[in-house]
């Protein structure tokens, strides 16, 4: 942990409830609550979208109306009232360039620890910042343009590169995929679009920061990332929301396309507001993330999940091409009354496809943390290989940790391994650390960090530090 000492952590823990629980006073434009065709037309018109995209939205809306909310996940929550949500909220001013950005908005970003000025210079991370529904600014555009890399907000992409958006939108997550994907397809407001041309190795990490600011809004962003043949990109995503009493809805769709020989590394640090100690408020995080791998390509998902009242999320890989590789590394922490049902799906279609799944769950407080994963080997996927490991760590006697793996194999040359363990944080381990002069809190932080190391190591450096901090904060006073 470079530049971050235990004493600093201690200071932080003292003051920390939910660090990102501030709201930003920015004049914003919010359309009335409710969802109907008219609202979708308004969203589309506001964004000056072409006819085909409006068609796409309306079609999705029709599909969504006929679907029912899924109930199979191991979570209990009050269903969102879809007619009481505003489906579009945007900061009123639109900016031409980074320098025009409202100082207050810049301050928000500073608080979030992603000061663009700083990052531009120091870390070389290009950031797309999405507040509520609209992408605010994207830094580093010019430098990326030199390499013909397109990294911009989704709306810009629709205007500037409609052929690419049209070609790939909805190809990985079809409209009818599930209830929330259909909802997103109908009302998605903005998000990021990224295209890496043939053979280009993206020289810096691309990053998006999502934030729900307005109350009574839902965030429905759409991310589409296309890595053309032989290219490489590492993409980071971070999420926060202000502290509010009501439950906010976040239903995003992320689609990744890795063409032949391409590699995509997608990292998420999710820190939506988890609700207070009584389980009041918090974000409902119902996200569909999926990538498709063509021949010899690789998609790697890494996620650190600490926030949200209810999480329902399965970043998946469709291993369509021969020799393609899918990876999933996850740390999911739940505390207080949080509920998480997360995991992955690895669909093996091509020959010699490989997948690795490492999932580490930590439950504390009165939370419920479930891993739900599917490994599916299709009849033509010769020599498919999967390794799955999901461990759960229990911190109190009131929380729950559950494992629901689905392993479906239809090819006799496949080699599949799955193992899962559930256990308590070792008292002897804590005792050992205490004996060496560490406080209980520090000992736990040490053990948890060691437990998650396999996953944290996969994160890019800047994110790893943030993730470690988040883990410590999320588990503060959690040992029962």
């Amino acid at each position: 942990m470079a530049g971050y000492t235990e004493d600093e952590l201690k200071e932080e823990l003292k003051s920390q409830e939910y660090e990102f629980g501030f709201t930003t006073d920015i004049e914003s434009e919010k359309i009335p609550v409710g969802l109907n065709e008219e609202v979708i037309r308004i969203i589309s018109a506001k964004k000056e979208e072409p006819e085909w995209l409006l068609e796409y939205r309306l079609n999705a809306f029709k599909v969504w109306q006929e679907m029912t909310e899924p109930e199979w996940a191991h979570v209990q929550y009050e269903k969102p009232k879809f007619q009481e949500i505003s489906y579009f909220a945007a900061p009123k001013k639109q900016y031409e360039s980074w320098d025009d950005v409202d100082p207050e908005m810049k301050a928000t970003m500073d608080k979030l620890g992603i000061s663009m000025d700083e990052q531009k210079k120091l870390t070389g991370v290009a950031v797309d910042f999405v507040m509520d529904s609209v992408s605010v600014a994207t830094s580093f555009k010019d430098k990326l343009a030199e390499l013909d890399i397109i990294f911009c907000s989704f709306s810009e992409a629709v205007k500037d590169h409609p052929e690419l958006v049209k070609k790939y939108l909805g190809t990985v997550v079809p409209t009818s995929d599930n209830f929330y994907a259909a909802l997103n397809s109908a009302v998605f407001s903005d998000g990021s679009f990224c295209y890496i041309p043939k053979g280009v190795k993206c020289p810096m990490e691309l990053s998006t920061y999502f934030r729900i600011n307005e109350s009574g809004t839902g965030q429905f962003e759409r991310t589409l990332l296309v890595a053309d043949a032989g290219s490489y990109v590492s993409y980071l995503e971070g999420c926060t929301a202000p502290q509010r009493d009501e439950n906010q809805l976040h239903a995003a769709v992320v689609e990744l396309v890795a063409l032949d020989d391409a590699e995509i590394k997608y990292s998420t640090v999710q820190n939506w507001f988890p609700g207070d100690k009584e389980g009041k408020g918090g974000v409902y995080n119902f996200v569909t993330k999926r990538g498709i791998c063509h021949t010899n390509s690789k998609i790697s998902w890494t996620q650190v999940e600490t926030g949200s009242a209810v999480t329902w999320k399965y970043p998946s890989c469709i291993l369509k091409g021969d020799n393609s590789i899918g990876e999933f590394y996850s740390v999911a922490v739940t505390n207080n009354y949080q509920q998480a049902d997360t995991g992955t799906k690895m669909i093996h279609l091509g020959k010699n496809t490989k997948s690795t799944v490492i999932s580490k769950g930590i439950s504390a407080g009165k939370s419920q943390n479930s891993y739900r994963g599917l490994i599916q080997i299709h009849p033509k996927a010769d020599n498919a290989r999967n390794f799955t490991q999901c461990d759960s760590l229990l911190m109190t006697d009131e929380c729950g940790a559950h494992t629901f793996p689905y392993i479906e194999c239809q090819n006799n040359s496949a080699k599949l391994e799955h193992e899962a363990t559930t256990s308590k944080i070792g008292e002897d381990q804590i005792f050992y650390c205490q004996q060496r002069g560490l406080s209980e809190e520090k000992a736990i932080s040490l053990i948890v960090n060691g437990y998650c190391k396999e996953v944290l190591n996969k994160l890019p450096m800047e994110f790893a530090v943030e993730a470690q901090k988040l883990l410590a904060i999320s588990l503060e006073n959690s040992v029962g």
Partner: protein
Amino acid sequence: MSDKLNNFIKNLDVSAAKFQQMAAERLGNLDFPTTKDEYWKYTRLGKLTKLELSKSADPDRLNLTKHIISNDYLVVVNGFIREDLSQYSKLDFEIDFLGSDRMSEEAYFDKGLNKKDVFSSMNSAFFEKVISIKIGASKINEGPLQIIYVSKGDHIISNTRLYIESGKSSQSEIIQTFIEKESTNSFTNHVTEVYVSENAHLRINKAQLEDDTNSLITTEQIHQEKNSVFKINTVTLSGALVRNNINIAVAGQNCETHMNGAIVTKNNETIDNHTFVDHRVSNCVSHENYKYVLGGKSTGVFNGRVVVQKDAQVINAYQKNDNILLSDFAKINSKPELEIYADDVKCSHGSTTGQLDEDAIFYLQTRGIAEDNAKKLLVRAFVGEVIESFENEHFEKYINTQLELIHGWKN
């Protein structure tokens, strides 16, 4: 009631006994599960539910010598108890045959069953007589009691029911063999209810050798009291659709629960094992090991579920499911589940799917063993771990003989 279910049971009539009347009424509100039901996700009942079935008592004297592996045995043909074919001493096991009119006498009877389950409800409504086996307190039985369930004839439905109560500090073993004699397109719907008292040890060994057009669904409801040890071994070597639902409620502390399974297929079988261990109290151990060897176009399903209830601390639960796919068309669906609501636990599961090790086959070939035999040897060793856990050499020998007869494996 759906037409399908109505049609399925149209040739069966309900007795006047209140117990069965009530079960029939319950059944009226149920329907066959579909693959949309999570509990039946991987198993299609289409073929079974289309069968036109009726019940029939078969009076023939059957020669079952090959299948008898114990001194005490009971024979049930098409759901009817055949005392003329059975042989047992009443000293070791208190055996009784109960008609449905006597059901109210048994405190535990029908209590634990899932009232929404269509097959066990069907069984409650239509069984002929219950075999009730009681093992007296402190009774230690050296030899096992065997129950042989025979399907004879075509398009037969048998609803067989077994009730076992093992008394305090008793020790015993029950063997159940499901076989067929010139039978096709038949269905056996079996329910076993078991009450294991304090300090009791009970072992159930099951062999399922149905015809490849016959189906078998068993529901086992087990209740364990404190300090008891319960073990259930299931061997399935044939059958069109074989489904075992084992539900174990561990209600007393310091219990041990073991479940083992060996499944070997070669044709079009669907073999589905659902196990559920409900750890309601602290300080218990459960251990599960299922091995599948699937050939032909067969499908294997394993769904093992362990629930550790809130405040059930110091639980050690382990599930293992290993699978070998021998043919290009065989399929396996494995779903080991852990649901933990307590914290001081050690729970884990492992599931592997793969094929025979080519190096091992090659090694055996270099030692002069033909490829075919080398494969059989390796598969035999793979399921051997389960077969050796039977703790009954006669049963073990019987399974080995059947493996040779049905699957052509030499020992």
